[in-house]
């Protein structure tokens, strides 16, 4: 493979991963606070539809992205209120919303399907995009791709290097203890659910305005919400590892297109579906492998280091409603 080809390949992976990165990092924030927002798949579709509709009507990309993000936040607020304040199963609420929002998106999006709307154009960063290879891959992208990369760094910094991030994690681990120290655990959970949903909505808008421009039935974003949820779990609730998972999935998707050219006899539909099970089973393998390591490595320093890097555990209060007495 020549260098130009490699650059194009890597650039398409970075671009294709942008919405999945946004969704996975958003869901990581939500789950770190102890709330599972299972509605991702429907949430992404609805926000994609609303973003396209708004951008088409107003001819403004900025308004489109904001509308998508607001929809994502609203959905997360519904999940939050039902589960945190009304004590309903987070999985149940999320699952119902997944199906219902998808139908809602198809229902209201019907008049907008197969229209040519505005879409984000590439925005090379001056000087930096001339750097060989790296410039092509990282600095010759659309603005939302830069945002997705920034979000990874900001989210990591917020979670692990600021006092607010510490509060957020403490609520996810032990809401009772956080409450005893004077934090309103439930309000914090609701706010971070909404903040995560905001990013998920942005992910939806990225689909319909950048990655797979336009609206239709199917839009092409179907299923990615579930992938984002799986990435969060097996990425060990760590924003950077979750983002790496998103890039891995984008890599599988891009490779699917290449393999299709290599074996034209295999039906195209198989390659469209293949990345999903491949991703989930890759993650399962990683999961079992890391458990194996943590048991066996007592002596070897490097293996220990790797095991520590891979090891992860869920926020202790994930999915459990907290009720102050």
């Amino acid at each position, binding site marked *: 493979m020549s260098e130009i080809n490699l650059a194009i390949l890597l650039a398409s992976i970075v671009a294709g991963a942008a919405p999945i990165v946004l969704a996975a990092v958003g869901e990581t924030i939500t789950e770190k606070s102890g709330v599972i927002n*299972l509605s991702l798949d429907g949430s992404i579709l609805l926000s994609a539809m609303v973003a396209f509709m708004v951008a088409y009507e107003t001819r403004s990309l900025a308004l489109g992205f904001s509308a998508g993000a607001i929809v994502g936040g609203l959905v997360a607020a519904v999940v939050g209120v*039902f589960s945190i304040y*009304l*004590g*309903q*199963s987070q*999985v*149940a*609420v999320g*699952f*119902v*919303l997944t*199906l*219902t*929002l*998808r*139908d*809602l998106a*198809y*229902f*209201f*999006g*019907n008049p907008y399907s197969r229209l040519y709307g505005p879409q984000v154009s590439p925005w090379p960063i001056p000087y930096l995009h001339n750097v060989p290879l790296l410039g092509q891959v990282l600095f010759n992208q659309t603005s939302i791709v830069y945002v997705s990369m920034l979000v990874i760094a900001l989210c990591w910094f917020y979670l692990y290097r600021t006092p607010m991030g510490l509060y957020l994690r403490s609520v996810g681990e032990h809401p009772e203890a956080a409450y005893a120290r004077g934090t309103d655990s439930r309000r914090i959970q609701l706010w971070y659910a909404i903040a995560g949903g905001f990013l998920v909505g942005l992910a939806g808008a990225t689909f319909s305005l950048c990655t797979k421009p336009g609206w239709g*039935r199917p839009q092409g974003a179907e*299923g990615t919400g*579930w992938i984002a*949820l*799986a990435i969060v*779990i097996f990425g060990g609730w760590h924003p950077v590892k979750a983002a790496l998972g998103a890039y891995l999935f984008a890599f599988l998707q891009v490779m699917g297109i290449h393999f299709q050219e290599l074996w034209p006899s*295999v*039906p195209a*539909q*198989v390659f469209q*579906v*293949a990345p*999903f*099970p491949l991703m*989930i*089973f890759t993650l*399962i393998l990683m*999961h*079992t492998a890391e*458990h194996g390591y943590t048991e066996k490595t007592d002596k070897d320093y490097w293996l220990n280091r790797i095991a520590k890097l891979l090891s992860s555990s869920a926020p202790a209060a994930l999915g459990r409603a907290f009720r102050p007495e």
Partner: protein
Amino acid sequence: MSILPLGTKGQVLRTVFIEILLMLAGVLCITSIILVAAGSSPFSAFKHLFLGSLGSWMKFSQVLTSWIPLTLCACGLVYSFRIGLWNIGVEGQVVAGAIAATAILRIGVESWMPGITLLIAFAGGLLGGSLWAIIAGFLKTKGGVNEIFGGLGLNFVAQGIVLWLIFGPWKRPGVASMSGTEVFPTSMWLPTIPLFRISLIGLIIAIAVLLITGWVLGRTRLGLALKGIGNNSKAAYLHGLNANRYILYAMGLAGGCAGIAGAFQVTGVYHRLIPAISSNYGYLALLVVMLANYRIWGAPAIAFFFVCLNVGSIQLPMMLKLDSSLSGIIQGAFVLAALLVYAWRKRQQRLVTLV
């Protein structure tokens, strides 16, 4: 997982009745608002939903034919919910059952006893669905993989296998297409009542599975064990119940029901294997069981209502230029309303216990 209102039997019935009326009113309001927002008249939409599902014998037979697989899936899900599992893999289990049934029909197509072949096809469907569910169960018990994600991954795998079969080994002579494999000869079709186009055998199977499920869960040791583990796995462990083993039992039974639904889709509805063979009945059945408060006896009626919505919505695009996904919105709104009702019940109970 389920909560009932407090009080004597009469009071409970009255409360439930009022709650159902409130839910109906709420959903009617929400749906009307959505329809008005889409620039359409709610009255004519509801009229078309009703006439499109119960307006004629033809439509009614279509409703009953869809009711069979949906009820079968719902029966299966009650097993897995009873032990506290979210069997999202039900969709893939329907597909696995359909694949197994198709494979058997393809082998038996030359045989001189189509009745026996059909019987074996149903047994194969049951086993296929069961096996697919037990894989998810093993991923859960041995691999520590959450059943939601294991099941979801297996759904995608099943979908991939169906596409591969239709475009590869089982493709129609000539050209392979999304319309599925070649249609079976009519001797391999599940017989239907003349004129009505309803499969009596399918109906009998669905009702039998329903009764068996109710009996197993309510009257047997196995049902008690599933309930015990679902409610309190630690206490069940202390009573000597092996939770992992019962998880596999519950998944096997759930997948078996879904597999029968898949076999029915092949033998009684499409008479071939198509890419969308599951018709989303697995996911819809999850909503049915949630609305039925995770119990078996409400499920058939709710399944009937949901199927009416599905069949009725088919003609919406033609008549009113509305997307047929309206039925899904109404179904989802009902489940959300039910969750609100459960939240209210929970609150009532807490107030009572505080007093």
